[in-house]
Structures are given as structure tokens and as C-alpha cells.
């Protein structure tokens, strides 16, 4: 009997050794450790054995069963590993084929830039103030210290809106967001006429100038202005605030300079140049070899403007500044044609 068991074991292991596939393993399992296998027949014939044989044959049969089962397990793993190795070596993708596209949404680049600007200003305490796009001459010019026929009006050729009987105060498309300065000041004064509260606002929005549409000029553009009014706000504060802003916007090492300039609604007025971030100030096409990029106009709020807003210029001072988000993007991304912005070609928009 023991010989028979040894034979069964030997034959089974011999069979097993040549197997390479899972299906053959399944068949081997049935014929070698299945219910009707020779080994199981030995267990089935157990009752016919003598009392002395039983423990000996029993132990031997169990040993063979365990041996076959563990051999099977080992072989199964080996077959699996071989199959896996085979499939891994065969399932090779062309990793250079393009990935699948996903259609996603994006903000318009001009609004992305507006958000960047407004986010920085918000952290500096400037809250968003929005106002209308169609304005009166009074709000757009007169209240901002542009006298009628003032030469500065030529810097801002306007689109006028048809209306009758308003020769003294025609309706026009705002040429800057500055009328909002007057509106904001007057609203603040209304809350406390004796002691108007300080103001720190950012005024974003679309503005309009009568220009031919070319690569360099547009009939509409976004502007963000800032306005701070209070007791004891100085030109030095203006310099500090805008230097901080420039560093946030253009990098912590950005060098800025303040160049005297002219705007009717501020005095003193200045242009702020930032060291060209394209060439690092060495001179390039973008900065027209000057090493500087003009990014902001600013100044101390003109006494007439404070007065028109309801703030006594003898008690209050303030500063204002303005910038163009589209221009900033053009400089930053070397965009050479401003018409891209309102052209809305998806091939442009999708790059932002």
C-alpha cells in the first residue's frame, strides 16, 4: 500500500512538472486530488484496512495529499507569475499616442488678470467698487478736473451717446473708471457728512476710447483704479503702496521707479515703471530697449476732485492709481496684438 502511495505521488508530481497553463492545472487537480483520484480512492478504501495498517497508511496518505496540494499551490503561483510576466511583456502601449482630451471651462484671460490684480489689492485693503459704463461728461470729465476744452481731453477721445438738449453735459462712454471715484466718495460722505470715513477702493471695469482698432489700440479696454482717501495719506504712502503692489504683481525683486507725469485728476502725478521682467532691465524689444515697462499711472488726488467728492481738501488727502490688465498680460505673455482679447478666438483663449 505504501508503495502504491509512493507511486501515485511520483506519477502526479511528474505530470505536474510539465504543466504550463492554468487549464492543465485544473485538469491535474481533478485527476490527482479530485474525488475520484487514485489518492482519494486510498482514503475511500480506508475501512478495509487492519487496525495496525490504519495509522501507518493514514499517515502516509496524508503526507502525499499535503505534498501534492502544496506542489499544486506552488505550481499555480508559478503559472500565474509566468502568465503575468508574459502579459506584461506583451501589453506594451504606444505611450506616444496622444492622451484623451477633456473639454474644460476657463475664465477669459482679461478677467483672470483682473482677478489677480483685485486679489492683491483686496489683501492691501482695497475693496471692489463697480459703477456704470455710460456716464455724463460731468462725471467723466468735469468732476475730475478736466475743464471744457482742456488739452488733456485730447488724450481721451470719447464715444458720445445720442441725446438731445444736453450740450452742457453730454452722455458718453466712460473713458476711465475714475467717475466711480466721485460716486464712491459721495456715497461715503452721505454716510457721515461731518466726518466722512476713509476710503480704500479698487475700481475695475470696461472703458472706452475713440480710437481705430489696430494691433496697438482698441475701442474698449479694462482698467483697474485704486483710490485711497483719508487724513494723512501722503505721496510717500503712494510710493510705498504701489511699490508693494508691484512686488506682489511682478515678483519680490521687482525694481520700480516713479516718473513725474500729468493727469488732470491728480497732483503731483507720476508714471510707475517696473524693471522689464522680460530682459531683467538689460533692454529688449518688449521694453523698447529702455529696460523699463510703464505699468501704472498715479498721483495725489487733486484738491478739486476731493472737493467734488465731498471731502475737504484742507483736511483730507488721497492718492489714486490706474492700470490696464490687458496691457499687463500683453507684456507678461509677449502678446503683440491687442485685438486678440475681444476677438475671442478659442485658440487664443485656450492658452490661458
Amino acid at each position, binding site marked *: 500500500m505504501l508503495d502504491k502511495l509512493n507511486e501515485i505521488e511520483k506519477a502526479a508530481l511528474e505530470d505536474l512538472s510539465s504543466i504550463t497553463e492554468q487549464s492543465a492545472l485544473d485538469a491535474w487537480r481533478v485527476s490527482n486530488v479530485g474525488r475520484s483520484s487514485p489518492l482519494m480512492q486510498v482514503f475511500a478504501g480506508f475501512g478495509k484496512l487492519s487496525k495496525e495498517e490504519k495509522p501507518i497508511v493514514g499517515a502516509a496518505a496524508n503526507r502525499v495529499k499535503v505534498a501534492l496540494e502544496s506542489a499544486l499551490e506552488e505550481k499555480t503561483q508559478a503559472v500565474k507569475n509566468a502568465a503575468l510576466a508574459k502579459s506584461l511583456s506583451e501589453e506594451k502601449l504606444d505611450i506616444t499616442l496622444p492622451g484623451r482630451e477633456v473639454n474644460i471651462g476657463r475664465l477669459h484671460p482679461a478677467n483672470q488678470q483682473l482677478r489677480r490684480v483685485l486679489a492683491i489689492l483686496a489683501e492691501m485693503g482695497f475693496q471692489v467698487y463697480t459703477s456704470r459704463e455710460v456716464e455724463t461728461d460731468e462725471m467723466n470729465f468735469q468732476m475730475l478736473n478736466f475743464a471744457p476744452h482742456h488739452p488733456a481731453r485730447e488724450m481721451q477721445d470719447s464715444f458720445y451717446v445720442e*441725446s438731445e438738449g444736453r450740450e452742457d453735459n453730454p452722455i458718453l462712454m466712460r473713458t476711465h473708471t475714475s467717475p466711480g471715484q466721485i460716486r464712491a466718495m459721495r456715497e461715503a460722505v452721505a454716510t457721515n457728512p461731518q466726518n466722512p470715513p476713509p476710503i480704500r477702493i479698487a475700481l475695475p471695469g470696461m472703458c472706452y476710447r475713440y480710437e481705430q482698432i489696430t494691433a496697438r489700440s482698441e475701442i474698449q479696454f479694462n482698467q483697474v483704479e485704486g483710490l485711497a482717501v483719508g487724513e494723512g495719506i501722503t505721496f510717500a504712502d503712494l510710493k510705498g503702496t504701489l511699490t508693494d503692489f508691484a512686488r506682489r504683481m511682478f515678483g519680490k525683486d521687482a525694481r520700480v521707479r516713479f516718473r513725474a507725469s500729468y493727469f488732470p485728476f491728480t497732483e503731483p502725478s507720476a508714471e510707475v515703471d517696473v524693471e522689464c521682467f522680460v530682459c531683467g532691465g538689460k533692454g529688449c524689444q518688449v521694453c523698447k530697449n529702455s529696460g523699463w515697462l510703464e505699468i501704472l499711472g498715479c498721483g495725489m488726488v487733486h484738491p*478739486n476732485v476731493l472737493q467734488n467728492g465731498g471731502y475737504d481738501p484742507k483736511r483730507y488727502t488721497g492718492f489714486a492709481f490706474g492700470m490696464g490688465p490687458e496691457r499687463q498680460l500683453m507684456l507678461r505673455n509677449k502678446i503683440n496684438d491687442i485685438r486678440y482679447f475681444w*476677438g475671442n478666438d478659442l485658440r487664443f483663449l485656450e492658452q490661458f
Partner: protein
Amino acid sequence: MKLPISWLKDFIDLDGITVEDIARKLTLAGLEVDEILYAGLAMPTYGAGEKHEFKTNGIAWDKEKIVVAEIREVKEHPNADKLTLLDLYDGQQEQVVLTGAPNIFHLKGTGKLPKPIKVAYAKEGATIYDGHADGLVLTTLKRAKIRGVDSYSMVCSEKELGITEEHEGIILLDDDAPVGMSLADHIGDAVLDISILPNMARNANVIGIARELAALTGRELKKPKIEFTTSGASVEDSVSIEITNSELNPRFVAGLIRGVEIKPSPYQIQRRLKLAGIRAINNIVDATNYAMIELGEPLHAFDYDVLKERAGEKKIKLITRPAQEGEELVTLDGEKRKLTSMNVLVCDEKSSLSLAGVMGGTESEVTQNTRNVLLEGAAWNFINIRRTAKQHNLPSEASFRFSRGVHPALAETGVKRGLQYMAAWAHGSIAPGLVDAYPLKPKDSVVEVTSKEVKRLLGIELTVEQIAELLSRLEFKCEITNHQLQVTAPAHRMDIDEGVVGLADVLEEVARSYGFDKIPTTTISDALPPQAGNPVHEWEEHLRDLLVAIGMQEVVTYRMTSPEREGRVITHGEYVRIANPIAPERSVLRQSLLAAVLEVAEKNVRAESIAMFEVGSIFEPVKNDLPNEPRKLAIVMTGARSASAWDVKAAPAFDFYDMKGRIELLLAGLRYTDIVYAQSESTYSLHPGKSAEVKINGQAVGVFGELHPLAKEKYEFGDAPVIVAEFDLEKLRTLNPSYGIIPVSEFPPMYEDIAIILDESVTASAVEALIRQTGGKTVTDVRLFDVYRDEKIGAGKKSLAYNLTYQAEKTLTDADAAVIRNKIVKRLENTIGAKLRR
């Protein structure tokens, strides 16, 4: 304005300051230098990694190779008629130089010249511009044989040396030019092209810039010495002036010079004028222009004898008056000008002579035969001149200055300076005195300045003495009494007011003179204002984020459009019209945001998939008042629902339900719950069966649907349907949202599918409402997953299949579910005649 550095040096010592330093100082002080044009002086060289500061053009003259020389004889060329050979001395040796210059050709063969001619001589190896090339092309002189004669050097034209574009003849230097001297040392120059800001008109002249530089460098301003001798009868004996409107003409000054000889000005003068952008005409006209560029006062020269003849036996009387409507004048340019009452004329008793401040008339202009000159210097109203110059399209150096304001004090200085130059260049004798009508003398502004005010506005600590020092450099008169500083504006400034505005005007000058770069940078110490936020702006930004999150590309479009463009999709009403449109297709302000976004979609029609939106204003007219500017959201979708790929065939096209799904997400994101989709009429051309109105809390807030086939035909869209939506943001924003969140249950939900057959006429929303009503709060979700029709179900019938979710605060059993399901089925049977499909 174009400013030659050599001219500037007449009035300020600039030794040791480079051209770039000057340009930088001026730029920072508000006189922005746009470009530096080198015409002889050494140009800065930049190594790799070195900073450029200014746009630079032009040419530097080699000091060894380009020198002053003299022509001693002009000889014939043996083989060429049109060429001559020059006997020339360059200070070291005699040379024979070939030239074809026409302006010395007449001297050919006349033998040794009685007086040598001084010229600009470029030796072999010198780099100059090629005179014959188009534009400016550098060339280096090499030895060559021209018509059998050796040529290795040349006498230069202005173009060849980069002074002007002129190449008709060679430069004829002044007689006192020192032979052998490097030309760069003699007339080498650099020209600053300076942008003049509207409030800096006072600096649009050489003295003005020199004064600024004096303030910026602390060096002395060398004021011009205006001195001359006079002879003969006084001008007052023969000329009088009448001003009819002193507002329009505050001052009129005239001087007389007799016996002038009209000829070209000295070359130095011509060269400076040309570099400043002014044509050189003759010594008299040049003197008026030269004095204007120098001092800022435009002058006008009359032929005195013409005036005298017109006056007959009488004394000349000049009258300034507004023109009559329709009056005519032939101006210097030969144009017959039709005038309006806005224009001011200088006349004599016979008729008009010139268009005041803008352009002279032909009859009395200075000609080759002029012997006696009456020189006018006046002050005009700047608004008037501005309008006149614009009306007649006559921008000139004079109108540029007058239309920005020239102080009347300059009229007298200007005339004297002009006479001085005429006497120097045309050998005339100046008549004693001036006629001077000065009916409207401006008051010199006086402003009190304190250290406290300087500190309050500029944030710097200065003593009154320091403030006075800064202002004195700009010629403000400063008086200090008891630590009080009283400042009087100088008599060339029209831009300094009094009172609180005057103070700001003066403090600006303190800041500029002090240097913006020296003012410290500080942070605001004043209190922060009350924090209020901007709920409307914030809500719109949130809306944008939601739209982007559901795959929408934002666009921003023009506000200006035309009724025709919008008419393709909307029945429009009255428009806000632009009075001066840039083009007919931008003649009105948009009434439809959707029309604008549709145009963008049309332009992008080649894109595989379009899903775009804009948030912005439209404009509704209010008669003779400001328009309303309601805010809108417009969405356009067309093309493939998702992107294709190399192994994915084109996805189905966007349809009504793609838009509806996004609108549902959007409204859920805005936390609205009571939403009804209803059939509606719209001013938009939408497909009647594939469009809906959106109502929230019972209020209509927007429409969406497929573009009407007839409207779509008017665009160049492809086959795919175009799905659009527009919402009124004012209405949408002011609705009450619900911020309640349904808690997530700990107990497992049960899912069950039911399918029912019912009449086509019953809407899905009615079925869903019944299911929800009947199931109560246990039915937490009702999801339609199939709509099916076929013959077996029967004509006029459809099958709707729902996936229901049951959820309770316990674990539901099959029996619990059965009870709810049976209730629902029975209700559907009884109410809408639905049959359970098995």
C-alpha cells in the same frame, strides 16, 4: 519736441554730464525722452549684459576721419561733365576730392577761390550714411576709381552725416569753421525727442528745458542776453495797435527792423533748426522760428512795406478781431480759408492779414524782396487757438504752443529776441521802442507754503528754507517772513493757481525739484475704512466660477454693435445710439448679450465643441438720460458633447438636454430649489418646441433652447443644433436661495426601478411630481433613466422608466419598499392612467 543738446548748452553748463544722464533726469522729472538721435557726438556703447536706457538712433562721427576742410578750387573732371574735382585742404595736407555736388558746381573752372569754402570732409575709412541709398544705410569709405580718377574720401551732405535726409548738395559750413578741427567737436550733436505733457507746455522750448535741468542739477541757468542798438524813427511813430477783445488777445507787441538783406541763415542756425524739426527758409523766417524754439513765443514777420502801401498815407493800424462768419483769408500755404466767428484775425484798416496764432496770410508775408520787417509777438486765448487749428487742420509749431497757453510776458521778450537775431543775420537796423498793447495782464499767483503742508501731502520733512531753495531753482519768487514762505509764480507760468489748488500746484514743483526718487516709501498709517465688501461683484464672480466648473469658456465681447447684427436673433427695440461711431457696424450699444456670444460662436465654428458664456451689461435707452445697464448671462453651446480622440468616434452633438443639465447644475450651485421649466414666448428666435422659460420661486429669470432654424440660417453654423440661454442676473441674484443641506443618512438606501406606460401628452415633470408627492420624504431621489416607444406599447403612448431611491431613518425591508411602490403605482394609475410595465 526735438532738442539739440548743443542749443541747450547755450543756457546751461552741462560739462561732465552725459547725454544719457540728461535724458534720464528729464524723463524722471516728467519730460520723457522717447528717443535720442545722435548726429555726430559719441554714442554710448553697451557691452553684453549692460543696460540700455533709451531708444537710440543716428551716427557718431569719427574724430580723426571726419574733419572741417576748405575747398580752394573747383576744377573740371577730365572724363565727366557732371563731376568736379576739388582742391581741398584738410588742415594737414592738400587733397583732390571728387564730387557731384550741385551747390558748388557753378564754381567749376573759376580758378582759385577768392574765399575758400568750408566743408565737412570724410577721409578714407570713415563710416557715414550712404547718400544714394534709400533710408539710412551705413557705409565705409574705400579707395575706388571713378571715371579714371582715384577717389578715397568725400565732402559730405547732411544725409551722409545723419543731420537730415537732405542729399541735394554738400554742407557749406560757416566761414569761421576752423579747418582741421574734428567735425564732431565743431558741430557734433545729439537730439533729445521729448514728449511734452499738457501741463508742461512752458517747457516746449530750449530755455524751459534748460531751466528744468538747472533745477535738477543745481547748476545755474544762463539767461539769454537780449541787447541791441537801435536807430532811426521809433516804431510807435508808424504803427499802432487796436485789440477789440482782450479775452481773445490779451497782448500784442510789434517791433520794426529796417534794411534787412534776405539770405540763408548761418549754417549753425540752419543745422539747429533742422535738428529741431524746423525747415530753414531764410534769415528772417529762421529768426522767428529760432526765437520761438528758444523761448517758446511764436513770432510772425510781416513785410512792413506791404503794410505801409496798404495804409496809403496813413499810419499803419493793426487791429485784432474775431472773423465774421464766412469771411475768407488766403493763408501762407496758398489755401483759401473760410472762417467762422471763432477764428481771430490780425487785420489792418483795409482787410485781414493773418489767422492769429495759427498761420500768416500770403499778401504780407516776407519774400526775397523784403527790406523792412514788422515783427509780431502776441498772446492768444489757448482754447480759441486750439479750436481754430483743429477746425482748419493746421497743426504747427506756433499753434502747438499757443493752444497750450503761452504767457503774455513772453510776447515782449520774444519780439526783442527775434529782432536781435534778425539784426545779427540780416544786417538790419532795429527801430527804437515797441508798440505794445497789453489790455489783459494776468495776475501772478501767490501761494503760502508751510513745512506742515509739505509733510501732509508729500510725506517729507523740509524746512521753509529748503522749500524756498527748491522752488527758486524753477524761478519762483520766494519770500520768508517769520518762518512763513510766500511763493510767487514766475512770469512764464500759466499753470499755477492760488488757494488750495495753487498749493497742490506748488507742492508738485517741490516734489519734482526734490526728486520723486528721493521721497521715501511708507505704508498708509490712516485707519482702514469700514469693510463692506461688494456682494454683487462677489456673486457674479461665484457665478463665473460655477460656469467654468461646468465646462464653459468665458468670452468678453464688444459693447458696440449694430441693429442688423443683433436682428439676426432678436426682435429689438430702441437702441442707445453712438453719436460718433467708429464704423457703421459699431453704431449702437448692445441690447442682447446673447447676440454677442452667438457671433463669437459663429467665428469659432471650426472648433469641434463650443460651450461659452459671457457675463456683462446690456444697455437700455432712457430718453435724454443715462441708459439702464442691466447685467445678463448668455450661454451658447454647439458641436460635439465631448472631445473626440484617435480611438473615440465623434461624440453626439449638444442638444437641449445638455443645456438643461448645465442650467440645473448652475441653479443648484446658486442654491435654488423651486425651479420650473415652462413653455414660453421669447423675444429670441428659438425653436418653439425645443425651448423653455426658467422660473424660480415663480419668477421668470431666463430662457434657453435651440436656435430657431430660420435664425440659425442667418449664421454660418454647421449642421449641429445651436443651443442658447440667457438669464437676467438682476432677477436671479435677488431671489431667495436655500442653504439647507440634506443630512447624509447612516442607514442604507434601497433602490428600485419602475417602468410605466402612459399617454404621450403627460409630461415627465408631472410624473415626477406625482411620484415625489406620493412617496413623501422616504423617496429621496427620482431618476428617469429611459424613455421608450414602440408598436407593442401602442401609438400615442410612451414608456418612462425610473430609478427610485428610498431612504428612512431605519433599515428598510423589502416589505417596506413594496408598500411605497404599490402606493405610487396606484396613484399613477388613478391620476394619469399609467400602467405598470412588466
